[in-house]
């Protein structure tokens, strides 16, 4: 499943602002999809679709902030750039605290928006790559037998085969065989690579 092209999703209730943003992004050669409300966006949003979100803070119905919270609940990791009017700084601060990528006060220079959009898209790519990588590791981990998983955990803690054999109450030879299977199934070329893989999928502390 190779990448879909990236899109900039614009959500703004003001027709003129929304349309002008579409045109501006288009003039910079970016693919763009526009939505008039948070509900409209959430209905059609496909998390697999890479891109970033340009979101008006102040909208009737579901506000930009509420939409951000909804996305967080859904576990979506799309970067969000908030657009605020004058006097909406407290809202912008709140948005940043909830993990917004950036915010912009309107009216703004085109380059300010485009730079932020570029960075947000780059972040999205990064996120997705990392996500794909960890997904793969998890798939491989799932193929290990319980004994192989035990050996992997002890080996990646830095224990030598002899110690692992002692811990598990098996012969050193048996450990060596399990370990070879682990390296093969995890597609790891070295112990160091195996350790990096385990760190990537480890729950954050």
């Amino acid at each position: 499943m190779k990448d879909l092209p990236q899109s900039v999703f614009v959500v703004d209730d003001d027709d003129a602002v929304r349309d002008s943003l579409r045109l501006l992004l288009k003039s910079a050669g970016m693919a763009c999809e526009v939505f008039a409300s948070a509900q409209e966006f959430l209905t059609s949003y496909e998390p697999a679709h890479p891109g970033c979100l340009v979101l008006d803070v102040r909208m009737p119905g579901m506000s930009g902030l509420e939409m951000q919270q909804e996305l967080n609940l859904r576990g979506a990791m799309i970067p969000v750039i908030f657009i605020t009017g004058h006097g909406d700084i407290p809202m912008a601060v709140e948005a940043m605290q909830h993990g917004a990528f950036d915010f912009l006060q309107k009216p703004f220079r085109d380059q300010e928006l485009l730079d932020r959009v570029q960075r947000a898209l780059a972040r999205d790519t990064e996120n997705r790559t990392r996500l794909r990588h960890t997904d793969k590791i998890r798939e491989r981990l799932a193929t290990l037998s319980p004994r192989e998983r035990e050996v992997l955990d002890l080996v990646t803690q830095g224990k030598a085969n002899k110690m692992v054999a002692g811990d598990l109450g098996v012969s050193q030879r048996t450990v060596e065989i399990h370990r070879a299977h682990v390296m093969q199934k995890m597609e790891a070329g070295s112990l160091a690579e195996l350790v990096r893989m385990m760190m990537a999928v480890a729950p954050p502390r």
Partner: protein
Amino acid sequence: MGAPTADVLALLEATFDAVVIMDDRGRISAFNRAAEEMFGYRAADALGRNVSMLMTSSDRAEHDEHLRRYLTGGEARILGKGRDVRVRHRDGSEFSVFLSVGQIPDTQPPQFVGFLHDTSLRRKALATLEQERQLNRLYLDLAQVMLVATDRAGVVQLVNQRAIRVLRMNSPQIVNISWIDNCVAPEDRAIARNAFRALLMSGGDEPQSCEYHVRSSEGEDRFITWRGVALRDTNNVATGVMLSGEDITDQRRAESEAHRALERMNNVSRLATMGEMAAGISHELNQPLAAIANYAQACSRFLRRPEPDMPEISGALEQISGQALRAGEIIRRIRSLVRNEDVRRESQNINDLIREVHALLASDARVHDGRLELDLAESLPKVTVDGVQIQQVLMNLVHNAFEAQGSDSARTQLNGTPFEVRIATRTTDGGDVEVSVSDFGPGLIGEVEQKIFEPFFTTKPTGTGLGLAISRSIIKAHDARLGYRANQPRGACFYFVLPAQLEASR
């Protein structure tokens, strides 16, 4: 028994007191003219008879006994002392006299002379005096003001009930103590002392005024406005002061509350108007401005391409002009918002509206040390207005008027002329209702008069320049005009004429 000599008789006849002489057995030997008048007996009838006939029955029985005891070397009951006794008129009525008795020297057997002074008149006078005193006390105690008299050292001589109640002390606690040191709140003692001194030194009888707090025995401070006069003796030397004080604590509190309410109302309306308008304007205008900026920047980018996308560019240009018009429309909408075109209009008596805000405005006047006068014509036709809006206009105009007179330069110029603002209503020749707010300040000078109604024009350091502009648009929304004319003899006059309501719809 020797008869009185001629010169003694002359003396007896000349004295106002009744004189009766008797011998050692109580027999009357002289009875002067005053005695004749007092008792109703002629001297000829009295002479030789026992003096007991002039006495009441209770005294009569004892008299001979007293006399006998004295003559046998006993005590003198009355001799040389004198006392009040009851005596008996010939017609049987009894009355009081002051009787003094003396033994006539060198008489043997002894003779006695009695002087009788009619005290019923004196008694009556004393009774009248006592009555008057009680009445005065009653006056003092009935008075709704505090009354305090002190001597010239400031020691309390007299207080009335009202003062006792305010001070929560009883009369003996207050009398004979220093007024200022015991009853005046410590912070105000200097003020009270100065006022007291000024009062003692004042020449005329004109009462002098001052205001200070008294402190009750329970520690409560009450704010009192005093009027005082110096008390003088017959040589016109001040012997003390008499103070009459009115407790205005509650009144002041109510006024300052009214004033705070006014301040709040001013602030709220100003802040609300300005704040909401500013937020509204900025947000509303921001949208088209942001769109215009985006479209224009997109156009530049398209134009930098080797083959510009002309349809997109021309579409964007159309959008730009459309958004600029939208911004203009927003501004027009804000202006009509200020005009408040869909307000609630009701048939009103303009005088009632003015009286309703009078308390608030009077409090404003007090803050500026001025006076607010109402000059309202009776039987005005009714007008159809939004009462609250018209009241806002009035408050704005009155506030401006006091501020115009309140500046230091204006005060110097005023110097003697009344520092007052006048709200007047009248029926115009055309039968409509004119409302005017006049002051005696410097008036509008030169170009100020031209610009005074322009939004954001202000002569005040902290003014917004919106008060008159908003007032004018409110009045305009009532099909009237807020105008300015010079006040006579000086000052400014803002006025507006509201159309009279048609007779049929009254």
